[in-house]
């Protein structure tokens, strides 16, 4: 599982945004704002990663229960899939 090429994640003004670069900007007209967890997950997904590994890294980074972490990951991936951002 991996986020498509052609996006730039950037910390700016105390938050995180993702913008399309190059040819991607022609198809994807807009931008994404991410909260802290979203930014963490996005960075992991810039390289190919399994859902199990993603869960392991989220649990290692944040003090959350496995149930909540799974819920967060599923919701995040569902959003990325809806927006066609994930392969």
């Amino acid at each position: 599982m991996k986020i498509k090429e052609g996006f730039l994640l950037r910390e700016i003004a105390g938050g995180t945004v993702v913008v399309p670069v190059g040819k991607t900007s022609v198809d994807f007209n807009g931008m994404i704002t991410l909260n802290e967890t979203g930014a963490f997950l996005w960075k992991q997904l810039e390289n190919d990663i399994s859902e199990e590994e993603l869960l392991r890294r989220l649990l290692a980074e944040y003090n959350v229960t496995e149930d909540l972490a799974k819920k967060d990951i599923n919701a995040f991936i569902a959003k990325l899939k809806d927006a066609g951002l994930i392969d």
Partner: protein
Amino acid sequence: MLKCNIGGFCVNIHSRFDFTNNLCRPYIDNGNSEPLFDVRVGESFLKKETEKNSHLTPDIVEHIFLASAFYKKIINFGGFLLHSSCILYKGKAYLFSAPSQTGKSTHTRLWQSVFGKDYVKIINDDMPLVRFTDGIPFACGTPFAGGTNININISAPIGAVVFLERAQQNQIERIQPFSAIPLFIEQTKHFNLDISTYTALLDMIDVLTASIPIYRLRCNKNEDSAILAEKTIVTQE
């Protein structure tokens, strides 16, 4: 070809038409500066785009693409455009930004009618250039000024950026830098920026939002909107 100084940047503008050459004339650079880059529009590209945009004449089409080329290149030299109507008032530049057709120019004309044309000058009515000198943001006139083409070759330190929305009742509020980021990105939009150029643009937006106040003005088309904005955004010194 005309060598121009636009907001302190020396560039060569290649145009086939009087339209652009006349607009560039106030910006002609007679000094010894080396141009940073050239902007031109290829013959076949111009022909193709003129056919595609049959409501526009070739000189206007060329002007639009020269503007677009200029703004894309200038990012890597430390400047960017903000889609806005920009005024000079009491020594400072105020930029009123919004999507097309919101009424940016309408609003700055209200300033002129309330406070007088001698006190409110239009630096650029559509696409002023933003650049930094010693970390201080300035807005600069450019020969590229959208529909009305109103511009003057002057620059001034930026007093505030105001994002406009149409409303029945006038209301103004200060907005936090991060809330303003999507608005800035929307109104500096360029297609096809590569990663390093987009990074340079976001770097400048980051510095700008940290150094000046940003407001959201919900406004109607009455003079009251300019009076409310002036009272709120112009700091008395």
